[in-house]
C-alpha cells in the first residue's frame, strides 16, 4: 500500500474558538480584604445608625391618648392612617409623603454633586447589608487569603461546617430583616407574639419570606452584581457629577509610573511614582475593581481603597492621599502639571520640589468648591420643599367639611311649593379625640335644614357628635320656602365648627331651583 498524502485545505471556521467572544460571563468571586482607617470607622458608625433605625423604630412608643395607637411610627393600612411621632396623616394628605420623596430626590442630587456617590458608598441598604454579611463571612471563614484558600479547597467536613454556619447566620439576619419590616404595619409588641404563635396574617408571613429571600440573595450571594447590573443609580450618576464633585480618585499625577522595583529604577535614572503596585486597593474593593483605572460605574465610592492605600503610604513613609477624595478639576490641573501640559507621560519629578515636597503649583480641594451655583440651587429647592411641608403641617386643618350636592334629583318641589335640595355632608374629625361639631347654614334666606336619621326640629344649626379620628357622613335636606326663592342657583355656606377649640371649616354650596318655581 502506498502512502496516501492528504493535502491540507485552506479553510478556517467562521468563529474560531480562540477569538469567539464570550456570550455569558460567570461571576468572578470577590474576597474583599478587611481595612482599617477613618473611612472604615465612619462606615461602621453609619452601619450602626442605619441598622439601629431600621430595627428599633417600630418599638418606640408615643402616647396619643386612648383613641389612637401608641406606636411612634406606624403605617396603619387597615384604618388607612400613617402615624409618625407628632404627625398623623390621612390618605388625602399623602402629598406629605410625596414631598418627602421629592426632598429625598433633590437631597440625592445635592449630595452627589458635592461628595459623589455617598449614598451608594455609605447608606444604601444594599451596601450596609453587604457590609454586615461580610462581617459574618470574615468572622467565620477568615480574611481574604483564608477565604480564597477555603474557596479553592475541595469539600471537607471543615469547609462544610464553615459554609453551613455562614449561610445559617446569613439566613437568620435575613429573617430578622424581613421580620422587622412587618412591625411598621401593626402594633409591634402584639404582632411579635402573633408571629411566633402562627396567629399573624398570611400577608405578614409572605412579607417576611419575600424580604428574607431578597436580603439573603442580594446581601449574601449577589452583592456587587446588584449595584452593577440591577441598580439604575450608577447610570444616573454620570449626569449628577461634575468637575467640582468630590469622588474617590487615584492620583496618577503622583502615582505613575507605578513600579515594584523603585530601588533599582531610581539609580538607573528612571522616573518612579508613588504607587508601588501592591494591589492593596484592589484587594480591599468590595466591588472587585481597580480604582487606578479611573472613575467607573462599578465604583460605589465606599473609600475603603483610600484606607488600604493610606496604610501602605505610612509604611513607605510617603504622604497620604495617593488615592483620595478629589474633584475632576483638581485632578486635571495636577495631571497638567505632571505631564507638562499633556506633552509627556506622567513625570513624578514635576510635581515635587527638589527637596521632595509637593510643588506649590498643585491644586488642592478647598471647601468653597462645595458652594457653587448648582449646589445652591439644589439646597434652595430642597429647603423650599421642606419649609413648605413644615408650614403646611403647622397650619393644616384638623376639622374638615366636604359637601356633595345631590345631582339626581337636583331639587324636589314639595306640596307647599317650597323647594328642597339634598346634600351629603362629610365631617372629618382628624384628631384622636371625640368632638361635638356644630353645623350651620349661612345665607339662603328662610332656608332650614333637616338631617336624615337624626330627630331634630328643622332649623339653621344643629350639633352632632363625631367619633375620634373618624369621618361622619350626614345626609342633609335644605328646604327654602316658595316665597323666599332666589335665582336658578343660589350660593350659600355650610359651616362646621368645634365650639371647644373654635376650629372651623366652611364650604360654599349651591341651591338649585326649578324654572317653574321661580
Amino acid at each position, binding site marked *: 500500500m502506498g502512502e496516501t498524502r492528504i493535502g491540507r485545505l485552506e479553510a478556517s471556521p467562521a468563529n474560531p474558538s480562540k477569538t469567539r467572544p464570550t456570550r*455569558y460571563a460567570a461571576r468572578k468571586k470577590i474576597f474583599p480584604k478587611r481595612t482599617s482607617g477613618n473611612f472604615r470607622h465612619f462606615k461602621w458608625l453609619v452601619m450602626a445608625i442605619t441598622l439601629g433605625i431600621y430595627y428599633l423604630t417600630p418599638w418606640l412608643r408615643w402616647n396619643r391618648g386612648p383613641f389612637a395607637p401608641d406606636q411612634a411610627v406606624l403605617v396603619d393600612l387597615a384604618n388607612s392612617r400613617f402615624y409618625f411621632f407628632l404627625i398623623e396623616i390621612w390618605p388625602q394628605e399623602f402629598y406629605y409623603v410625596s414631598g418627602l420623596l421629592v426632598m429625598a430626590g433633590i437631597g440625592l442630587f445635592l449630595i452627589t454633586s458635592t461628595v459623589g456617590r455617598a449614598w451608594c458608598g455609605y447608606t444604601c441598604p444594599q451596601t450596609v447589608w453587604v457590609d454586615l454579611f461580610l462581617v459574618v463571612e470574615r468572622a467565620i471563614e477568615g480574611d481574604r487569603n483564608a477565604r480564597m484558600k477555603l474557596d479553592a479547597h475541595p469539600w471537607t467536613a471543615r469547609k462544610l461546617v464553615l459554609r453551613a454556619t455562614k449561610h445559617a447566620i446569613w439566613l437568620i439576619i435575613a429573617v430578622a430583616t424581613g421580620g422587622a419590616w412587618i412591625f411598621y404595619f401593626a402594633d409591634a409588641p402584639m404582632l411579635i407574639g402573633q408571629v411566633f404563635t402562627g396567629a399573624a396574617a398570611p400577608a405578614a408571613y409572605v412579607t417576611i419570606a419575600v424580604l428574607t429571600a431578597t436580603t439573603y440573595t442580594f446581601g449574601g450571594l449577589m452583592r456587587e452584581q446588584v449595584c452593577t447590573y440591577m441598580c439604575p443609580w450608577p447610570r444616573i450618576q454620570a449626569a449628577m457629577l461634575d468637575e467640582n464633585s468630590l469622588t474617590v480618585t487615584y492620583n496618577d499625577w503622583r502615582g505613575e509610573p507605578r513600579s515594584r522595583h523603585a530601588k533599582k529604577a531610581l539609580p538607573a535614572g528612571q522616573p518612579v511614582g508613588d504607587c508601588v503596585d501592591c494591589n492593596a486597593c484592589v484587594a480591599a474593593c468590595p466591588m472587585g475593581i481597580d480604582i487606578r483605572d479611573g472613575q467607573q460605574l462599578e465604583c460605589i465610592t465606599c473609600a475603603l481603597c483610600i484606607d488600604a492605600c493610606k496604610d501602605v503610604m505610612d509604611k513607605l513613609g510617603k504622604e497620604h492621599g495617593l488615592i483620595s477624595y478629589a474633584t475632576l478639576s483638581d485632578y486635571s490641573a495636577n495631571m497638567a502639571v505632571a505631564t507638562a501640559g499633556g506633552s509627556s507621560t506622567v513625570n513624578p519629578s514635576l510635581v515635587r520640589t527638589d527637596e521632595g515636597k509637593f510643588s506649590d503649583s498643585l491644586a488642592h480641594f478647598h471647601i468653597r468648591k462645595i458652594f457653587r451655583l448648582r449646589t445652591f440651587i439644589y439646597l434652595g429647592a430642597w429647603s423650599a420643599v421642606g419649609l413648605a411641608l413644615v408650614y403646611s403641617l403647622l397650619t393644616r386643618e384638623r376639622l374638615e367639611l366636604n359637601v356633595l350636592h345631590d345631582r339626581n334629583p337636583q331639587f324636589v318641589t314639595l306640596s*307647599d311649593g317650597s323647594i*328642597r335640595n339634598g346634600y351629603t355632608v362629610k365631617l372629618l374629625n382628624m384628631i384622636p379625640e371625640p368632638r361635638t361639631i356644630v353645623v350651620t347654614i349661612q345665607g339662603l334666606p328662610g332656608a332650614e335644614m333637616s338631617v336624615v336619621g337624626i330627630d331634630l326640629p328643622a332649623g339653621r344649626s344643629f350639633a352632632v357628635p363625631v367619633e375620634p379620628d373618624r369621618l361622619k357622613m350626614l345626609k342633609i335636606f335644605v328646604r327654602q320656602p316658595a316665597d323666599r326663592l332666589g335665582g336658578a342657583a343660589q350660593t350659600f355656606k355650610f359651616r362646621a365648627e368645634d365650639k371647644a377649640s373654635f376650629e372651623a371649616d366652611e364650604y360654599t354650596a349651591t341651591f338649585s331651583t326649578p324654572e317653574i318655581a321661580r
Partner: protein
Amino acid sequence: MSDEQIDDISGVSTTGHEWDGIRELNNPLPRWWITTFYVTIAWAIGYTIAYPAWPLLHSATKGVLGYSSRNGVNNELAAAEAGKGKYVAAIESKSLPEIAADDALREFAIAAGGAAYKVNCTQCHGSGAQGSKGFPNLNDDDWLWGGKAEQIEQTIMHGIRFASDPDTRLSEMPAFGDLITADQIAQVSAYVASLSGKVKDASLIEPGSKVFAENCVACHGDNAKGNREFGAPDLTDSIWLYGGGETAIAAQVRGPKHGVMPAWLGRLGEAKVKELALYVHSLGGGE
C-alpha cells in the same frame, strides 16, 4: 450599520450597531442574568400548563390546577350572598318599624333597596326617583296612597290598578266630558287651579266652586285635600301628576288618565319589597 469592530477605549468588540457614532459594546451578559431569563421562560411554560392558557378551536386548555375565573366570580358572589344572608333573613322575619329601629339593618335595607330600585323602578320613576309627567316623584312629601313605610310597602306589593292582583289599589275617576258641559268643565278647572295659583279669568272661580261641590267632593273632599283611601290627589298643593295649569286640569276632568303600577310581591319577594319600601321612604318625603 453592521460593521463589527473593536472599541478603542474599552477593547470590547461591538455588536456592529451604531447610532450617530455611538457603538453598542458587545459585553457578555452575567450568567445569573441569562439563567434567570431561562427560568422565567420555564416558569411561563409551567404557568400555561397549570392555568387555562392555550386557545383551541372552540375552547382553551383547562390547566391542571383546575382554576377558572368564572368559578372564582361565582364563589365570591356566593360568599357575598352568604354574608348578606343574616340581614335578609332578619328583614324577612321583622316588621318595618323593627327594621327601621335597628341601625345596621336599616342601613342594609336602604342600600339593598336602592340597588333593587335601580333595576326595577327607574324605568317609570326615573333613576333619581324624580318621576315625570304621569309618574309620581317619590322624593316629595305628596303621597296619593300614603307616605308611611307600611303604605308604601302595600303599594309596591300589590301595585295600583293592576288587574291581576286582587289586593291592588283601585280607583277610577269618571270621565266628566260625558257628564257635565264644556262650560262647567272650564269653570271647575279654573276653580281647582285657583286653589294653588292664579287663573286668567277670576269670574269662573265662583261657578266652578259650585260644580266642584256637586261633582267632586265625594272623592276629593270638601276642601279639595284629596283622599288617600281612593288615591284621590290633594288639589290644593303645588304638585301635579298630569300638569297644574287650567288646560291640563280641564283635560284630566274631561277624560282622566289612570296610571298603572304592577304588583311586585310575586316577582321580588317579601324581603326585597320591604327594602324598596324603606328606600323610597328614606328619599326625603317619607311620613
